[in-house]
């Protein structure tokens, strides 16, 4: 009898990627493999709570932890105003410094990743990130790429640029955005390529920080929102998933003092929760609507007082279970959130603030699976109108039901696990 395959999953330090990997790991475990996690400091225990073994990258020292807190405060002060800018205006202000930080992370983590892979000796590595850690390629173990961002992360002439929020037909804007993106990321990219070279890896083309795997690449993009590519991705190496929704514990909506109307869930992700001012103003509008609202406020519960009777705040929700029970999902366009809404046939009201949230907001609007609302120009009236219109959009509801049926017929997490196991078998 063959030994169970050990699969090392390495998600980036964001909840979208982390929980997406949990979904795949649950299915890999069902198939007899042993999924383990390479875990960034700060995510300790997140995977263990789902029953997976964690291997921790070195934690920062205590002064560094304090520095992190200071860093976050500075991050909030600096970047909150940037979230109000257009996707293009965010390139120099937000995207460029973020890429610099990502490159720093890759450099800092390199020794730790190398040592952990030596320890784990996996049969395969699943990398869900936006940057390559050279230690992965150097280890010689088969590695698989998971693209848990929007499909725009893999470029094509028919696909609008990553992070642009543009439609493919916006030719002039597309060209301008592409050039601005290359300029904005040039410094980080140059630094990253130098690092790759020092680790014996070939350089990557401008604007690219992560190569595709020669073996297998998994993309979350469900068929309902997928682009028709000018250069279709080779099917033997690129597997599209119908989202990647994990299994979660069941959520029982709490009884509210005003307990009537449809359930609406709002979450802007753990980063979006820092904008307590925006969320507070939205909650004021929710109080005027005949619906029940579950609002994820992340670690900032203490910032809220006088919560309306039809609103419930939580710092964490088992999101797939809440979305399943909701009539509308208000989110930031995070790819996991968007996929979960589609998987459960729930319309999206996307209020993006950065990264591929812009891309998904555009795509939700274009495919008739939701609407985009601008975070700077909304008013209580436009928010109310958008919510009520989405709740009453019968053709959209029918479309989403069809999409949901199709996605649930082939759950992405299972499809991903099957593709991973097949790819490993080929390699043995």
């Amino acid at each position: 009898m063959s030994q169970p395959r050990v699969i090392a999953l390495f998600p980036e330090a964001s909840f979208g990627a982390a929980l997406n990997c949990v979904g795949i790991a649950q299915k890999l475990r069902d198939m007899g493999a042993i999924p383990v996690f390479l875990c960034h400091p700060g995510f300790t225990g997140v995977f263990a709570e789902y029953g997976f073994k964690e291997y921790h990258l070195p934690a920062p020292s205590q002064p560094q932890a304090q520095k992190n807190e200071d860093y976050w405060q500075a991050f909030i002060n600096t970047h909150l105003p940037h979230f109000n800018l257009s996707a293009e205006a965010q390139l120099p202000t937000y995207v460029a410094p973020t890429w610099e930080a990502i490159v720093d992370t890759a450099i800092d983590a390199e020794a730790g990743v190398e040592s952990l892979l030596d320890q784990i000796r996996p049969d395969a590595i699943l990398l869900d990130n936006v940057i390559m850690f050279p230690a992965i390629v150097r280890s010689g173990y088969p590695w698989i790429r998971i693209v848990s961002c929007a499909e725009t992360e893999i470029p094509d002439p028919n696909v609008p640029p990553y992070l642009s929020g543009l439609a493919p037909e916006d030719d002039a804007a597309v060209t301008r955005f592409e050039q601005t993106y290359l300029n904005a990321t040039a410094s980080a990219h140059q630094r990253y390529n130098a690092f790759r070279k020092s680790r014996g890896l070939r350089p990557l083309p401008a604007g690219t920080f992560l190569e595709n795997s020669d073996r297998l690449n998994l993309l979350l993009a469900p068929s309902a929102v997928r682009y028709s590519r000018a250069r279709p991705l080779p099917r033997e190496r690129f597997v599209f998933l119908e989202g990647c929704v994990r299994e979660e514990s069941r959520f029982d909506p709490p009884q509210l003092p005003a307990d009537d109307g449809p359930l609406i869930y709002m979450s802007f992700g753990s980063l979006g929760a820092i904008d307590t001012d925006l969320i507070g103003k939205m909650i004021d509008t929710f109080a005027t609507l005949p619906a029940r609202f579950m609002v994820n406020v992340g670690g900032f519960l203490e910032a809220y007082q006088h919560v309306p009777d039809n609103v419930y705040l939580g710092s964490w929700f088992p999101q797939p279970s809440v979305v399943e029970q909701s009539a509308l999902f208000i989110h930031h366009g995070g790819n996991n959130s968007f996929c979960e809404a589609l998987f459960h046939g729930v319309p999206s009201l996307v209020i993006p603030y950065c990264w591929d949230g812009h891309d998904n907001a555009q795509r939700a609007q274009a495919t008739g699976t939701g609407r985009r609302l601008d975070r700077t120009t909304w008013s209580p009236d436009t928010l109310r109108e958008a919510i009520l219109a989405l709740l009453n959009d019968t053709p959209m509801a029918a479309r989403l039901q069809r999409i949901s049926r199709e996605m649930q017929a082939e759950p992405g997490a299972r499809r991903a696990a099957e593709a991973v196991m097949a790819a490993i078998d080929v390699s043995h």
Partner: protein
Amino acid sequence: MADSRRNSRQNHIALAQQVIGVVLERGMSPGDHLPEQAFSEACGVSRTPIRAAFKILEEKEILTWKEEEGYFLEIGQADGLTEEAHRLEDMEDSLAQRILSDRADRRIGDIQSISALVRRYNVTRNSVLNALKILSRDGVVTQLPGRSWAFQPMFDTPKAVDESLAFRLTIEPQAILAPGFIMDIKKAGLLKMRMQELLDTQEGHITSTGFLRLDTEFHSFIAECSGNRFARGALLAHHRLRRATQKDISIPDFRLRQSLDEHLEILDSLERHQFELAADQMVLHLRRSRIRRPEAANRGIPPLMRGARQ
């Protein structure tokens, strides 16, 4: 007068819960007869309050009454009798519960005047006073000089939950180790049965609220058994507050089950009088429960995690 009526109703609700406890202990099935005499003996009260408790259970459609024959069990354990018993608790102190729940959900501030509460709940001043008295009995509110009342700290933020676990890590193992720990084996058996029932449910079907209820019952039970009266008092009050106000405990199915297994292991050790082992198991259990999720995480940027961490 109104107060005594209210208290009497509360006593009958408590007795009704006790009746269900006896039904569960005896493994009774739907259709079984509940003899008044036997239940008055089992609950240590006269037949008059037992009748009042049966009446409440009839109102909740847990029992049926047949002319000349008496009361019969309508639903059994498989039909959710345990859940029904918990729902009975919700009947208790309903205004107090509403006030508490609104405070825990941050709908009302931590300092409240009687008149503000009268306006919000559209009830009499006496009702509000009564509710506040009930809450003050549990140490949830205290009266300030003048007419205002102040809520005590609650489990309304992740930081508060973390502080609670730090406190419990100090006290709960000591509550087990203190000389004079005596466990009610029958009650422990009932708790174990209910934990096993939860463990037997399909994956993903344990709700966090259902778990929290059983979790607080388990930890309160450990406190009740403690030989140290101060540890007992502090922990019982703490778990009452947890039960009333803790929210936001969405825990993955794996950890819920692992946690229930840990409870069962602790009870097993206690049954064998292996107190040191049980105390160590309690430390492990609480440490595992103390995992805190990052408050904010983003690409390339270290996750933010406030508060103490071990």
